[in-house]
């Protein structure tokens, strides 16, 4: 080192001895830095630097205290009609398979979130059904196809169109266009355009549950292959043979409304219709009937024939050979009532047997019901399927005579009896295309899929009843790269016009010309679009109903077990099986969820040696029509002896994550009898017990109401006529000065509700138990789906439930004491059924409020029992102390939790779009319950306030009440003397607040004096004598 003479320079400056450089050479920072020297007077010195740094740090740390930013992207250009926080409503139409409903869609910030009935349309009477309510969630189904598919691979529309056009063009043989019933004029027109291009197209329509028998019978009788439109509201006596018109038969929302109209009672309406039903499974119709006979399916013909004979005798018409029937008592009774109410009666049958339906026509004709309760001139278009055509198509397909198949929004491989042979036959077809919106059982077998929009994304029209039109308009732009089927048809027929213009054009030429009110088409169109409906007198020439010839051969009653199929209100035909709201909606009768099962009578269970436990049963091996499945057996009171029931719509294999593997597919078991599908297998059915146990999840396991008059209060019509308060129970409390009404025995003054006092009426007489309200509530209030496992733990979350009670077996009445109690738990074999919607009773003296340690639940000054979710600490004391057990606890985190994939509306980004922004999604560990839709109440009040007026009755209503097709639920302000609720309860001001003068109105559990704001109206059955 020492002798190292090398010289190192910091830089040229040092070498050149630059003075400026020398000056700072030894400094750390060679160039001038002001902070380095203290002496510097002006400019910033170190102290300033430190000050700035201090401030900087302080500022930085302060900034860090801010809450994390959630991205909310504002409108760049706000659409004219979209205001954040303000919902928009659009009239539209629910179209799914052969079903329809005229609806109003509620959208928030461009998202459809709720469906209501369209009061302006007479087609479905402003009511809805559970499936309609749930369909909004199907829109946000992540498993819908996101692109058109060609040979199993996603592709573009151009590519698909090119391929399809060339293929269809090249096909010489027959091209089958398979669909459910088509009753949309514009769709038909679009198809005509397609047929014009490809003359070899043949249309084949089928319905999951076939009506061909009736259609053929009507064709024979009236020369018109159509279903008449029914008007139950005009009927004094109704007889239904396995036609579940309150459930899934034709247009149930409308039928519920019409039927309910005949069941409403009041001080100046003391008459109601009488409903007889003869059926094998206990259906909604059966459970609402006044007289019900459980009959074997094979006996139906005989029963109808006997009824015909009874009436024919009275009318002096020729009789037929009927054969014997079991329960003739109810039948003769029915015949007499029908005859008494000639012209104001109705006989319907669910049979698909031409000759049987012929008899029914004849009966209605004898009773002169055509023109009053039955209208052939305004025929019902929603069922046009032709069994024979379908059968032939399947034959041809397998014979290789069908070169091309177009499946238009249908899934026959799954939901048709011949599904399997269709699947096999498809291989023989040269080309097949489906417009299914998902890769379902059928679509997964075709060459090309042109995925259709969801109906909420589509333009469309429909003519469900002749002369009554309803429009469908999109409420959101396509979520995926889908195109509506009609548009595809136009495209394939080489027509480039958009379907929207096509519809308009079509209406211009048809409906616009058929009316005279409007002269300007655009105004006419806008009006129709606004109303969602257009009605015009049918143009078809009126039909004269003359003599109806009957050709009925008596059939021997089947001796073996008979399998009877049914559609339940929840999953229905299975097309919406991937909708968790429907899967978790309790079957209105069995109260079971997430399964189908074999409903068997208690006797059969005993014969099989099946003794079910608490929601535990055994699997049975069911063999029918050459098919056999293993399926859980469920004891069903009211099941006809020697019959078993099985629900359609389950057992999807390509339905989606939610639907797949839930239950068993029953469609393949449907058999044909002389060319017609039979909804019952009457021979060769065997049921064997396996030793495999299985758990069926039910939301209600105790089936009788144990004669508790403080829960269910009922009477017969005759009793009611004598005394309007018949069936009422008036509990009294013994005090030191004699007996007192519970309301008068209290430590407290109670509170007055100065402004509003919200209340609800539940008319148990017109509630048919259809369950539309429960799904509506689920959609409105962001109620989570918890899945089968949690329902088995008795943890379903529904805020609104419909309790279904059976009358207990007669044996109980003879007994006493403990034995009586035990027997009272056993329902009768053919029980009377009571439906009782249960939601939070909004007690004015709420026991739940008292016990909450943190006052998370308390009472509003409008009588609503309110929950502050974010104050709740989850002690569950309130739920324990709720005598009605309507409170629901968040046992787990149901949202954003992989543990609950079924809960699609909270666990995937698309599903979340259905959530109602006005309602909190509840956190884990908090209690929740019915809030009387407080968000709707507040919104309605604000709207009124903006216009400087008081809310008008009817503009504020709860989700359940608005969904109810039979108007059994009435919500309103008891402080408003003109409100429906005030009128129905006949409220009067008494010394202690409002007094209810309506004799039928009662509070449940009156004796504990919790003062509910929900009033039940007694159940009145139209019977002579009250027997269980």
């Amino acid at each position, binding site marked *: 080192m020492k002798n190292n003479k090398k010289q190192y320079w910091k830089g040229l400056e040092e070498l050149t001895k630059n003075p400026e450089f020398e000056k700072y050479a030894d400094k750390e920072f060679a160039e001038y830095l002001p902070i380095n020297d203290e002496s510097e007077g002006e400019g910033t010195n170190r102290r300033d630097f430190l000050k700035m740094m201090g401030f900087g740090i302080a500022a930085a740390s302060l900034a860090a205290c801010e809450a994390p930013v959630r991205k909310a992207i504002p409108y760049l250009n706000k659409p004219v009609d979209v205001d954040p926080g303000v919902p928009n409503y659009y009239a539209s139409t629910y179209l799914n398979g052969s079903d329809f409903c005229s609806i109003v869609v509620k959208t928030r910030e461009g998202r459809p979130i709720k469906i209501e009935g369209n009061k302006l349309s007479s087609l479905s009477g402003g009511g809805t059904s559970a499936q309609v309510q749930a369909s909004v969630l199907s829109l946000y189904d992540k498993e819908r196809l996101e692109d058109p598919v060609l040979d199993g691979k996603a592709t573009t529309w151009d590519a698909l169109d090119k391929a399809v056009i060339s293929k269809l063009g090249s096909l010489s043989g027959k091209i089958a266009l398979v669909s459910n019933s088509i009753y949309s004029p514009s769709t038909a027109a679009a198809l005509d355009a397609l047929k014009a291009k490809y003359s070899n197209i043949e249309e084949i329509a089928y319905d999951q549950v076939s009506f061909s028998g009736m259609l053929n019978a009507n064709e024979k009788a009236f020369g018109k292959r159509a279903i008449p439109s029914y008007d139950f509201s005009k009927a004094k006596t109704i007889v239904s043979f396995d036609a579940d018109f309150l459930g899934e038969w034709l247009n149930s929302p409308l039928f519920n409304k019409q039927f309910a109209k005949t069941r409403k009672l009041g001080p100046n309406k003391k008459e109601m219709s009488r409903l007889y039903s003869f059926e094998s499974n206990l259906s909604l119709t059966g459970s609402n009937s006044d007289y019900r006979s459980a009959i074997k399916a094979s006996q139906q013909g005989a029963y109808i024939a006997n009824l015909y004979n009874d009436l024919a005798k009275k009318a002096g018409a020729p009789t037929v050979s009927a054969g014997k029937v079991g329960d003739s008592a109810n039948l003769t009774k029915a015949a007499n009532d029908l005859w008494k109410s000639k012209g104001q009666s109705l006989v319907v049958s669910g049979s698909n047997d031409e000759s049987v339906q012929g008899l029914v026509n004849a009966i209605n004709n004898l009773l002169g019901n055509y023109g009053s309760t039955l209208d052939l001139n305004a025929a019902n278009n929603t069922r046009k399927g032709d069994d024979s055509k379908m059968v032939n198509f399947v034959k041809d397909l397998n014979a290789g005579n069908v070169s091309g198949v177009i499946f238009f929004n249908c899934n026959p491989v799954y939901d048709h009896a011949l599904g399997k042979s269709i699947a096999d036959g498809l291989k023989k077809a040269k080309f097949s295309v489906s417009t299914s919106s998902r890769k379902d059982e059928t679509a997964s077998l075709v060459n090309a899929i042109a995925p259709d929009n969801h109906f909420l994304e589509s333009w469309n029209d429909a003519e469900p009843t002749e002369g009554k039109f309803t429009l469908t308009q999109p409420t959101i732009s396509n979520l995926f790269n889908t195109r509506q089927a009609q548009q595809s048809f136009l495209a394939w027929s080489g027509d480039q016009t958009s379907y929207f213009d096509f519809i308009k054009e079509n209406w211009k030429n048809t409906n616009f010309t058929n009316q005279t009110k409007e002269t300007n088409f655009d105004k006419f169109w806008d009006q129709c679009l606004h109303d969602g409906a257009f009605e015009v007198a049918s143009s078809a020439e009126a039909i004269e109903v003359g003599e109806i010839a009957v050709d009925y051969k008596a059939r021997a009653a089947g001796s073996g077990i008979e399998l009877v199929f049914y559609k339940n209100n929840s999953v229905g035909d299975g097309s919406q099986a991937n909708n968790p709201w429907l899967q978790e909606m309790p079957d209105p009768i069995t109260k079971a969820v997430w399964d189908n099962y074999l409903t068997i009578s208690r006797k059969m269970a005993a014969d099989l040696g099946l003794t079910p436990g608490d929601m535990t049963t055994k699997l049975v091996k069911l063999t029918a029509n050459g098919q056999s499945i293993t399926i859980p057996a469920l004891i069903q009171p009211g099941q006809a002896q020697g019959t078993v029931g099985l629900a359609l719509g389950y057992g999807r294999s390509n339905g989606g994550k939610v639907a797949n593997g839930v239950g068993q597919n029953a469609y393949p078991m449907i058999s044909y009898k002389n060319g017609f599908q039979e909804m019952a297998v009457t021979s060769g059915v065997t049921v064997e017990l396996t030793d495999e146990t299985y758990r069926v999840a039910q939301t209600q396991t*105790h089936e009788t109401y144990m004669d508790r008059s403080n829960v269910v209060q009922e009477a017969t019509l005759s009793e009611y006529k004598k005394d309007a308060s018949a069936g009422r129970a008036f509990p009294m409390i013994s005090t030191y000065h004699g007996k007192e009404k519970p309301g008068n025995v209290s430590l407290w003054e109670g509170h007055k509700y100065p402004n509003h006092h919200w209340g609800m009426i539940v008319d148990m007489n017109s509630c048919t138990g259809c369950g539309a309200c429960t799904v509506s509530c689920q959609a409105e209030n962001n109620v989570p789906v918890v899945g089968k496992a949690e329902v088995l733990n*008795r*943890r379903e979350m529904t805020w609104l439930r419909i309790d279904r009670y059976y009358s207990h077996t007669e044996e109980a009445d003879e007994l006493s004491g403990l034995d009586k109690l035990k027997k009272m738990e056993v329902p009768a074999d053919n029980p009377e059924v009571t439906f009782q919607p*249960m939601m939070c009773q909004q007690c004015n003296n709420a026991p739940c409020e008292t016990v*909450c340690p943190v006052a998370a639940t308390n009472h509003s000054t409008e009588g609503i029992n309110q929950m502050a979710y974010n104050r709740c*600490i989850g002690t569950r004391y309130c739920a324990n102390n709720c005598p009605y057990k309507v409170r629901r606890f968040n*046992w787990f985190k149901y949202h954003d939790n992989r543990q609950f994939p079924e809960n699609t509306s909270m666990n995937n980004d698309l599903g979340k779009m259905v959530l109602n922004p006005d309602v909190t999604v509840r956190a884990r*560990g908090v209690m929740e319950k019915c809030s009387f839709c407080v968000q709707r109440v507040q919104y309605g009040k604000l709207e009124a306030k903006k216009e400087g007026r008081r809310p008008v009755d009817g503009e504020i209503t709860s989700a359940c009440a608005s969904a109810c097709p039979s108007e059994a639920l009435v919500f309103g302000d008891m402080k408003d003397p003109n409100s429906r609720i005030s009128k129905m309860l006949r409220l009067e001001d008494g010394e202690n607040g409002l007094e209810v003068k309506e004799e039928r109105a009662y509070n449940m559990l009156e004796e504990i004096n919790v003062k509910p704001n929900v009033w039940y109206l007694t159940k009145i059955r139209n019977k002579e004598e009250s027997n269980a």
Partner: protein
Amino acid sequence: MHAESVVRQPLVTGGKTVHDITNDICGRVEEKPAKSWMLAMALSLSLLAIGGYYVYRLLWHGIGEWGLNKTVGWAWDITNFVWWVGIGHAGTLISAILLLFRQRWRMAINRAAEAMTIFAVICAAMFPILHMGRPWLGAYWALPLPNTFGSLWVNFNSPLLWDVFAISTYFSVSLVFWYIGLIPDFASIRDRATTTVRKAVYGALSFGWDGASKTWSRYETVALVLAGLATPLVLSVHTIVSFDFATSVIPGWHTTIFPPYFVAGAIFSGFAMVLTLLLVTRKVYKLEDYITVQHIELMNIVIIVTGSIVGVAYITEFFIASYSGVEAEQYAFINRAFGPYWWAYASMMTCNVISPQLFWFKSIRTNIASTFVISIIVNIGMWFERFVIIVTSLHRDYIPSSWAMFYPKAADIGVYLFSFGFFFTAFFLFAKFFPVINMAEVKSIVKATSEKTDK
């Protein structure tokens, strides 16, 4: 001055001198832990660990880990709560009430009994916290704390809030009572201490006690007044716990007989648990001369009395139910005895009403083994009593559609084990490091009662 009750038998046998007492009791603290103690400790710690896993699951996933449902919102959680609180009654009761009655036989057992009380109450307090859906908030939201929301206060109508006050008051007062008693004994250990650590620790624990007569006389006043305060407190705690049920509207809960019946039950189970533990401690620490058969017999007599009171209460409930003429009420009780949970009711009856009656026989009530067995049976029975009251009343109340069964899950059992793990861990630590018998008090009676007084 206080009147001496005539002493029939010596309360301390084996001719112990005052010095022997110091040796015997302090010796346990000073000597190295015994093998048996190590084993017991290991067992209770493993219980704690197993239970801890389920507590974690409960806190992490939610209350759904338990078997509760929409109809039965409380089951094992509150059953355990009430059960532990009940057990937690004996200690303070023994020291307070027996002190007021000048029952000197308490002196040998009150220390351990109070310790048991403290730990039992902690176990009890665990459950109201754990059973909350959101314990991380509920733990302090249930207190009337001022907060940024200004007007956000608790609901003083809620019996659950009364519990918060009752339990915390009872716990802290018992703790103070217990600790005051410990101070002079800590001083003894301090003055015998050989190691600096022990000197420091027990020095701090003994609060600088010097045994001056002035302090002693104040000490006695404090003990007396505390006893006077603690006595109504003991009775109030279970009364208020019973309000959780008595003030509700649920048939089977809504019962005015609950307060006395719960208190009796509490003393019943409390004494049983004291016996269980003392019989073990007595054996392990060879304290036969201090905890004599007479002590055991006297406690067994208390068990007969309270057990019979409870039995009468059960029958009265049925009478009142039938007499009331209230349908739901009547059904609730019939369902208890003959419904799906009849087995729970049956075991409650056998354990609580029948088994203690055996103590009418002197041979049984003076027999260590039989006493031990029955004391355990009694506590099983008392657990079932609470289970019966809570679950059978809830699972079938007013609306038949909601009737449901309750099936426990692993976490129900796990969390219960956790409380046991804690209880025994705490108790064994106490037994090792604290004087298990109140030396000062026993010393004060030794001259009067021990056989050989001349030294």
